[in-house]
């Protein structure tokens, strides 16, 4: 809902005017980022607030809990993208030059948002100042992802060297692999006090 509302509001503001490459790509990832912070951040915070985390800790091993939350968050973000991306292209009157690169970037970027967002949610959920901590933690962790994804999206939308996108995609794969591996290793220590 947030994503669609933001898209429509910005579209009306621009009133059909052309959007510059940098702004268009950044807008998309700003929408994805805040949608992730709204949705993904609730993964573990809700379990702590409702008190169901104790039952979960007593019943399940940590790794399956993290993977379950991560997969749900990834599915959530990808489902949101299936609505947001066509609307985004339509409202801003954009045509994608490198379609494959564009789709792979969206996929890898959202998977990265899901994996980083899930572990950050687990960390923030243990704190008394959940919302504030999540915001502070997310910036340094997500900045490399957002910069790379924005760069790749701009190239895919407005043309450019394919090699440039490939480098960014390789970076996104590396980021996702690193964050996921680190999260699986660290989650047990975050989950249990």
């Amino acid at each position, binding site marked *: 809902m947030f994503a669609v509302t933001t898209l429509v509001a910005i579209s009306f503001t621009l009133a059909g005017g052309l959007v510059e490459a940098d702004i268009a790509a950044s807008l998309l990832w700003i929408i994805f980022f805040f949608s992730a912070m709204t949705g993904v951040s609730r993964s573990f915070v809700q379990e702590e607030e*409702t*008190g*169901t985390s*104790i*039952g*979960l*800790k*007593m*019943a*399940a*091993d940590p790794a*399956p809990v993290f993977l379950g939350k991560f997969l749900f968050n990834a599915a959530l973000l990808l489902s949101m993208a299936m609505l947001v991306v066509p609307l985004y292209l339509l409202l801003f009157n954009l045509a994608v030059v490198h379609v494959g690169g564009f789709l792979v970037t969206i996929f890898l970027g959202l998977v990265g948002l899901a994996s980083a967002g899930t572990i950050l949610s687990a960390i923030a959920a243990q704190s008394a100042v959940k919302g504030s901590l999540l915001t502070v933690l997310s910036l340094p962790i997500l900045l490399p992802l957002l910069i790379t994804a924005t760069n790749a999206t701009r190239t895919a939308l407005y043309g450019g060297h394919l090699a440039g996108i490939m480098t960014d995609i390789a970076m996104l794969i590396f980021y996702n692999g690193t964050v996921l591996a680190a999260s699986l290793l660290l989650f047990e220590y975050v989950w*249990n*006090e």
Partner: protein
Amino acid sequence: MVNRIEVRGLGKAYHNRWLFRALDLTIADNSVLVVQGPNGAGKTTFLSIMCGLVAASSGGISIVLEGRQLSQGERRRQLGLVSPELKLYDGLSAVENLEFFSTVRGLPFSLPRARELLALVGLGTRGRDFVGNFSSGMKQRLKYATALWHHPHILVLDEPTSHLDEKGAQLVEQIIYEQRGRGIVVLATNEPREVKFGDQAIVLA
């Protein structure tokens, strides 16, 4: 003793204030340990350390079954917890909660067993109702069903008769008696009625 719980040099501190320290005891199989103490003494914290939910500041608790010390994952499979801090999923029915926790434990779900447990705890006709509509006493009864689902060797009870009526208290007495026959019970309470269940007691102060 082949099956036992060993507490060695156990201590827990929060913000440089020790709740308790240098606790040493052994809990034998087929026995009940009662943990007593005033509010804030650390009874719930002691149980939480035993369940692996909270880390000890010093020492530790070992659970030995069949002569072998259990890992954290194995410990999880042998413990059942009933606690005021443990909440079930309000958006699911009683049966769905049992199914969820059974699945998460990697155990096959059996509807007849679910019905049997719900009948045992006095919720036989409420299996399909959402837990969010349950009273606090009904939720407490469902916690017992959830804790007993996987036949744990050790039952950990924090304020076991909390929110329960007289019939509920008698049910808890029966559960503790039966669990003592097949394993260990560790309960935290200051209720005189519950204190009498204990074969062994410690007082945290």
